[in-house]
């Protein structure tokens, strides 16, 4: 069995592996690197549970080969929180009850993060279109939309020029 050496920066950390060319990115992340927050739901690139960022672009990792990301940067749900501090999207999904079984949640958060990087103030319609590639079976999307709206507000407040003398 011929393998290919890949070197990938995952959540800021350089990871290496010898892989079969056919190894899917999602299996590289889950089985080789032990990052099991990225899930597999449909195998046909419909559900988005496997969404990660590759070089800053959201991607469905079940429809990408590990060898395709050699030398690239991958970000997964495990790379979203800063230590104990949750990413605003993680906080918002919790606050707004944007998840139930939690299975689609990592992919949903990763897609929402990419969406908010493209569009800091999306309308409800733009949010719904923006997560059209992510299926959720539990929530009916209502609270997911609310969570993304909350996170957008939070992120805009963070990005806004800091008021002077507001320490803390």
């Amino acid at each position: 069995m011929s393998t290919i050496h890949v070197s990938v920066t995952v959540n800021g950390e350089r990871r290496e592996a010898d892989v079969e060319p056919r190894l899917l990115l999602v299996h590289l992340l889950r089985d080789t690197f032990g990052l099991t927050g990225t899930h597999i739901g449909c195998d046909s690139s419909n559900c988005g549970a496997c969404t990660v960022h590759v070089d800053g672009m959201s991607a469905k990792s079940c429809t990408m080969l590990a060898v395709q990301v050699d030398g690239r940067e991958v970000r997964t749900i495990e790379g979203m929180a800063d230590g104990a501090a949750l990413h605003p999207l993680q906080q918002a999904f919790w606050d707004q009850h944007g998840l139930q079984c939690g299975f689609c949640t990592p992919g949903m958060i990763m897609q929402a993060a990419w969406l908010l990087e493209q569009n800091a103030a999306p309308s409800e319609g733009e949010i719904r279109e923006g997560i059209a590639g992510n299926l959720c079976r539990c929530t009916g999307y209502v609270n997911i939309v609310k969570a993304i709206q909350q996170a957008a507000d939070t992120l805009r407040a963070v990005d806004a020029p800091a008021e002077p003398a507001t320490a803390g």
Partner: protein
Amino acid sequence: MTDVQVRTTTTLEVGGMGHSVKRKEDPRFIRGKGEYIDDLNLPGQLWMDIVRSPYAHAKILGIDASEALKIPGVLAVVTGADLEKAGLHWMPTLAGDKQMVLPTHTVMYQAQEVAAVVATDRYIAADGVAAVLVDYEPLPVIVDPKKALEPGAQVLRPDRGPEKANNHIWHWESGDRAAADAALAKADVRVAEDIYIPRIHVASIETCGCIADWDAVNGHLTLHMTSQAPHAIRTVLALVSGLPEHKIRVKTHDIGGGFGGKVPVYPGYVLAVVASLTTGKPVKWIEDRSENLQADSFARDYHIHAELGATKEGRITSLKVKTIADHGYTDAAADPSKFPAGLFNVITGSYDFPDAFVEVDGVYTNKPPGGVAYRCSFRVTEAVHAIERMVDILAHEIGKDPAQLRMENFIQPEQFPYKTPTGWEYDSGNYPVALRKAMDMIGYEDLRREQAEKRARGELMGIGISSFTEIVGAGPSHTFDILGIKMFDSCEIRVHPTGKVMARIGVQTQGQGHETTFAQIIAEELGFPVADIAIEYGDTDTAPYGLGTYASRSTPVAGAATAIAARKIRDKARLLAAHLLEANPDDLEWGSGAFSVKGSPDKKKTIQEIAFAAYTNHPQGMEAGLEAVDYYDPPNLTFPFGSYICVVDIDRGTGQVKVRRFVAVDDCGNIINPMIVDGQIHGGLTMGFAPALYEEIAYDELGNNLNGTFMDYLLPTAVETPAWETGKTITPSPHHPIGAKGVGESATVGAPPAIANAVVDALWHLGVRNIDIPMTPQKVWRILNEKGVAL
């Protein structure tokens, strides 16, 4: 959001009933730290993958595994012949029928398991599957249950013996046939309709899977799996395998959605166990999506003929329903044993029927086992769809507004508890208030005016109502069991000395938030803050026996057990407090998490102080510790209800239906966590919307599943899913300890007929009486075209 004032008696910090406590389980999920079955890997673990039949019905002439076994890393190929030697080729279904683990001679549905490949790696196992050659001789296929019942139809299950030499499984009836017939004969108006509710699939985003781990030294089997009913699985495994039940541990982890699809015992689980027994190593099996859609249990597939009689003023008098239930090749439904058609006889719905009769016949076909679940396993969805469609047809037939007709026929609030003609006793309800509230929220009268204007312009707009009654909380032991096991549920609470609590429950969360809501019940009853209460479930070594979570039974049954167990603890706490306060127990009163002496509120002991005393200073003659167990046997079922109103616009060019607005007013009795209840309703509505317009598992005449991927099995995305508008009324259950009723399935049950009624409402003036779900663009266009209104 909830617009009624939900009563609370605790502070937000304590977080008892009625508080929207943020979920305790979420921190792990939002960080990707949930542990779903495929996230778990054990040392030395092997992989199993399954060879499946392309044919829906065929003889197996031979299985050639030689090429597969040549692949480095393929360790074994298990066939039906191998299992037969150990007597493991058959297993019982939860309905007491027989299901193959692997076939020895004949496959009965497309994608049926034929052999299992065990390998060192999931990729190699897949290669092994592709390399196994199976020689089949195709046999004629029956996909239509009506054809299966025809005289002379080939008998699909000859194993049932000569006395059952047909494809009829069972007949079940409820109500008074003669009375219903007589009332129908006398009715001024009779409406009849054939309504088909097709096969659908729960398609939770996580598929099914397990790791079987056989420890030969200790003779102990651990089955890690994604199951809604771990105790039932353990018992079935013990019965099938002959292993002693205490040497089997079933452990669920986080579950990525259940909706009923993770109740049954699938052959893959048994095969993984066999593979682990054979190899002595842990063996993992994870379904892919197509296997999940093609072979796991299905819901619905009900061919219903309903007839409804009424006076000319629209007072309904009689209902008669005849149904054919397609169960596939085996009856693997998880219905209570006395109810082979589930609780389908709740079909008189929210209406005061003097007479009703319902009968159902179960039938075998060449399809995978059906009749289980889609966020309602007990056939309530089918019943609600039929009655809500029929009531709407009657309203249109006699020219009465469907809302008005419902109001005039509802069981009235003062009639509760209400006995239905098919034998149920509804615990409580207030149907007119819920419907009126939905009408006000959506602006019903304005919408009817808008519809009239649009119709005059040739535009097709419809308004649909569904005023459903759910039936959940199975169930009372005098009538409810599965494989003989009574349908109680359980809770065991232990209070630690420092006032922290561990509670274990017999039910299982698949996203419902049990870690939060069950803690809230305990917080309500005992005053411990939710943060101090840990809820455990899903481990048969530690959790008390329970039947699991499905059919919205967690809150009605295990929730009641939790409240009762907490009250047992409170009773003991009263004695401890009396000892500490040197008072008579009867002189103490309970409030805000403490016992105080009546009239002397300063003389009190908090529940935390009492807990400490239970281990450090308990009175002579009293057992130390503070714990209690309750196995709750509900006196009756609970009957949540609601009224939904839906507005649709139909594209006359394409036949596409757009749901413009959807208002859902639900009443699930007392509410534990309003945020979670709303989330459940949003999800339930979406799982009602989906089969109304999109989802269907269809078969071609060869028995091929034509919706075997998410490319063709159309789960709705956020784009087409409506922005749900929810409202509440609260009518507590009089017999439930905390007055709750359960809500998980209500919306899935109530939503489809609201949408179907709206679409038919838009088209009734053209002579359209019924459209079966899913109302796909092609189906609606066909009707528009026939009626001459297609653009």
